């Protein structure tokens, strides 16, 4: 799923400077699960904004809403069709795709991001998400024991670890992070597939997905 983090309140308040009536919109999918932009977070941010404004002596009317999937046109229109027209700006707690869907649907209004979209990942434990996929469009996982060196190696190396690996197989840039290539080595060793790691891999095709990406589903 897509992982995001909320921007600092100060940054969000600077974006909203001058507006008196706003709509804060959460998303019920990925960012709800990673505690960044669901109903609860919409409520918390809205309260913080109201409180901070009234403390400064400014009047700010904050409406709240949550769309099940902000990246889907119909869902956004159904939930916000009658709420959006009455506000000066929309603050989105969706990922970058959600913000852009709403910006396209409500062209005449500023749609502002309250989150920083960080990566595609998975939960490692309660409240901790880790990056797993760089959406490179040229999946390599069959050759690396299901561990992605493109994003989990700090340098995205394809032919083995760099010389910076720390004692105990930790990453050059973070002593708490495992070297992806040491993980790949152990996984392939366990599976009796170390031959895969002995093979030379050509430079990656970084145009496997032409950016910006566009995928047409195959017809049945």
């Amino acid at each position, binding site marked *: 799923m897509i992982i995001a983090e909320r921007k600092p309140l100060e940054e969000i308040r600077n974006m909203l400077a001058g507006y008196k009536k706003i709509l804060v919109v959460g998303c019920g999918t990925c960012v709800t699960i990673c505690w960044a932009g669901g109903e609860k977070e919409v409520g918390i941010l809205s309260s913080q904004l109201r409180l901070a404004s009234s403390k400064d002596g400014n009047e700010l009317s904050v409406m709240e809403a949550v769309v099940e999937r902000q990246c889907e046109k119909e869902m956004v229109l159904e939930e916000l069709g009658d709420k959006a027209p009455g506000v000066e700006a929309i603050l989105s707690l969706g990922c970058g795709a959600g913000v852009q869907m709403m910006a396209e649907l409500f062209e005449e209004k500023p749609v502002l991001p309250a989150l920083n979209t960080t990566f595609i990942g998975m939960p490692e434990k309660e409240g901790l998400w880790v990056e797993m996929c760089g959406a490179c469009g040229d999946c390599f996982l069959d050759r690396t024991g299901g561990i992605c060196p493109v994003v989990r190696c700090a340098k995205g*190396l*394809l*032919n*083995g670890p760099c*010389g910076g690996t720390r004692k*105990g197989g930790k990453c*050059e*840039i973070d002593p708490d992070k495992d070297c992806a290539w040491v993980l790949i*080595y152990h996984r392939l060793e366990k599976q009796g597939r170390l031959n895969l790691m002995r093979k030379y*891999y050509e430079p990656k095709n970084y145009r496997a997905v032409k950016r910006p990406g566009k995928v047409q589903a195959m017809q049945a």
Partner: protein
Amino acid sequence: MAKHFRETLKTKDFIVTAEAGPGKGSNTEKLVEHIELLKDKVDGLNVTDNQSAVMRYPSLGTCLLIKEHGGEPILQITCRDRNRLAIQADLLFAYSRGINNVLCLTGDAIDTGDHKEAKPVFDLDSVQLIHLVHTLNSGKDMAGNELEGGVDFCIGASATPSADPIEPQLMKFQKKLDAGVGFIQTQAVYDMDELKRFMENFHKMDNIDGVKILAGIVPIWGAKMARYMNENVPGIYVPQYLIDEIDQAPKETKAAKGIEMAGRLIRQIKEEKICDGVHIMAIGREERVPAILEAAGI
């Protein structure tokens, strides 16, 4: 005129290279001093490429300076700051100006340097870079286009004898040997037993004919520096007994002690024929390299 490094690799019993580390800024006075001081005392002068991801005077420009002053430059190229187009263009330029040796490196992570917000490139890795230089040597570019005027680089790579675990490193090392290299300059080694184990592993590997191994020597100038390197410099591990030895030397003789210790390591490598030579990385203290060579009996 300095001898071509490729020839030196073939003919010399004990090969010595050293590092010329460019500074930050356009003033090359000190750099030229170091080049003048070292060019006739070593077989090749490596130039680091934005070492430790710290922005500096370029590797290519420094190699030109070495060439102008009659030395034999070894151009270090990392994959961190350039994509495949830029790397190929730089290599063509280097060769057209008489720079014939290239050391192919991955490059330290952006996070270790002084421009931490920069976009890391890593379009290629070090093994792919070695293949790329061979492709250029064959008269073509990476896209298969013919070159007007080819190149003929002597290619080197690095290895990390002190890596833990060593197995994944050795697998990558094998890929570098398979790709084809003339020389290996290792990351700093301090523990001679570790270097010997590394060489035992090397001798069991494929495609090692004619490949010369130069052990990396980073002199230690103080306990603080050694501890700093252990914590911050990727791939360097200074054993405690050496930290204690430099720590116990009085302040006024610390430099002499560091020279003696580095000289001792080199002497042992040479006398016991552990490998084919050494690569001295004095990191800003290039002026002490002649004394180190003297202490080593070279």
